[in-house]
């Protein structure tokens, strides 16, 4: 594994509900890359992201993320990884400001970082006082991304980040991803929106039936 490798999976196997969702994945991602994961439903894209985040156990093979061996320790890597999954991880009864404030507090981010993240996601001002349950899907996604930004993660794992967003929201996501990479982060995106994601990505990896079929 090179010093620049952020993700290094070799023949990694992960089981979900008794089914081998990752059936021997071999994948290397270098620092500052934006990698697009593509593949049909059930190909193992979300499982791979969750395994990289230390949420799913890798039961066989090699699985190193940011220098941590996930087959031995899945918890230490988590502080340095940010995952935006299908769900947003928000509390519907709380306002945008309260949600971002909560996540800032639990991860130890400063008020300045919180304010900056909300400004970058255009969820500041009056909008910040609206409850999350009253927001559109796109606004919720932006709020979730603001919570991700305050984490200062080194590896961003984004599962369908463009889902539910309008054209402006999608452009904003792309801009934020590029900014994150410019500031030293590495990004892995799983998406069905191939054209848009390919414009953003530096490399595309195809997953089929829990295995990497192609990487270009």
């Amino acid at each position, binding site marked *: 594994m090179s010093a620049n490798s952020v993700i290094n999976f070799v023949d990694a196997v992960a089981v979900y509900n008794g089914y081998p969702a990752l059936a021997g994945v071999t994948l290397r991602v270098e620092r500052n890359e934006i990698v697009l994961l593509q593949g049909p439903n059930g190909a193992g894209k979300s499982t791979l992201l969750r395994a990289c985040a230390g949420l799913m156990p890798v039961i066989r093979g090699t699985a190193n993320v940011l220098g941590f061996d996930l087959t031995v320790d899945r918890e230490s890597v988590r502080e340095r990884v940010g995952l935006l999954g299908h*769900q947003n991880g928000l509390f*519907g*009864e*709380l306002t945008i400001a*309260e949600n971002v404030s909560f996540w800032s*507090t639990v*991860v130890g981010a400063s008020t300045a970082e919180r304010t900056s993240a909300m400004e970058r996601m255009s969820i500041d001002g009056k909008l910040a006082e609206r*409850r999350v349950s009253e927001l559109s899907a796109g606004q919720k996604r932006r709020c979730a991304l603001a919570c991700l930004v305050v984490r200062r993660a080194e590896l961003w794992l984004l599962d369908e980040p463009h889902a539910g967003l309008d054209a402006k929201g999608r452009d904003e996501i792309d801009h934020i991803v590029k900014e994150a990479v410019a500031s030293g982060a590495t990004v892995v995106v799983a998406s069905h929106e191939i054209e848009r994601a390919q414009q953003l990505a530096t490399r595309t990896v195809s997953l089929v039936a829990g295995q990497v079929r192609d990487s270009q």
Partner: protein
Amino acid sequence: MSMSTSRIARAVAAKDLRIELRSRVVTNQVLPFSGLVMVMFAFALDNDDVLQRTAGGLVWLATLFSLFILVQRTFAVETYDGALDSLRVAGVNPQGIFIGKSAALFVQLLMLESVLFIAAVVLYRVNVNGSGAVLLVTCILCATAGLAFVGTLYGGLTAGARGRETLLPLLLLPVVAPVLICATRATESAFRSGGVTVGEGWPWVAVLAVFAAVFGLGGLLSFGSLIEE
């Protein structure tokens, strides 16, 4: 407790209580439900002497029924939009989450029990003197702490499980049986029901304190593993 754990615990407790204030589940659903249970007990037993003697047990039974709703609610807000997953992936200290959620549950249970004991005085015509009040308050604090710890522990365990609505009472009821027994005995002593004295209640309170300490410590040590997949 480290600064980080304490900060996380305060944030989680404040968040849970704020959500409760907004959603009003305790005031609009749990309180009316437990109030109805108290009234139904009164109808079913229909005898002042029996009601006075069993008042303590009835209050704690109504509290246990309400505990299931509160625990399910407190973890539903975490799992509905994947917040528990996000907390795990953010590497948030699980001890902080456990303490914070237990503290919020403790406050909500305390509010509920206050109303239930007032209802017991009105509906079941029980009375309590000065030393009995001290015993009763200590009993409520210890029993509530135990219920909050064990509720949070088992709520975390069943949070991601299928059929958690039925699984939680099945798992929780046998575990909280000692709380029901000890709190009922201590409350009967505080009310001096059936000729028992206030002094006889203190050993039961001691058992409640031990129960709370064991599950508090057990929760701190095991909550992280329980919320893992």
